């Protein structure tokens, strides 16, 4: 598979692949990195926003 890198498109067999996940109440994030001879040449991230705060909390005023 070809990977877009800072060196141009490269076959992933030539690269060291690292992956990670962050999972908390706010987000599920996955990231993937490709390294070449100790140099980071590609990093992508995918953030899924899980649940956002409610804005407001409006009330009406009693009249009289």
């Amino acid at each position, binding site marked *: 598979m070809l990977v*877009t*890198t*800072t060196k141009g498109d490269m076959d992933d067999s030539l690269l060291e692949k690292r992956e990670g996940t*962050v999972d908390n109440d*706010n*987000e599920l*994030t996955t*990231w*993937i*990195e490709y390294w070449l001879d100790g140099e*980071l*040449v*590609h*990093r*992508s*991230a*995918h*953030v*899924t*926003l*899980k*649940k*956002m705060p*409610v*804005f*407001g*909390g*409006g*009330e*009406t005023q*009693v009249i009289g």
Partner: protein
Amino acid sequence: MANTQSMCTSFMSELMLGQHQLGTSTLVSRTSLTAPTTDTVKAALFLTSATINAATTVYAATGEVSGTGYTAGGVTVTNATAPTSTNSSATAGVAYWTPSASITYTTVTLTTAFDTVLLYNFTQSLKAISVHTFGSQTITAGTFTLTMPTNNTSTALLRLATT
């Protein structure tokens, strides 16, 4: 029957739709008063060092990410689903809206850490809509994708609620 004091839930989604004007306000033309076009919403990324919060009133480039493949101002948000609202009781309800597709920054290099996306109204003088934060990220010759939550009363990206 009994009457119950409450803000009407429909009013909140109608605010999102710009159907009420309770004061004088100068708007950028939406082509037609009776069948106005939808405003364009954009999403801009901001550095962890920026100060973007509830006090942000308009988009400005200060503190925005910069790098290869990223255009100042960010990307256009796909908006195919209009705001809607749902009552949960006689006194409570939620109006909500979520972009209808992921927000994607394709083949970018953003080497300075960022953790915030600002949604703003590109059509209406860059007025700020909402600020959303996530874990600090950098991107190298890659793609950054923000997948939207499910568009419902409890998880939608933008929710206005009465209590």
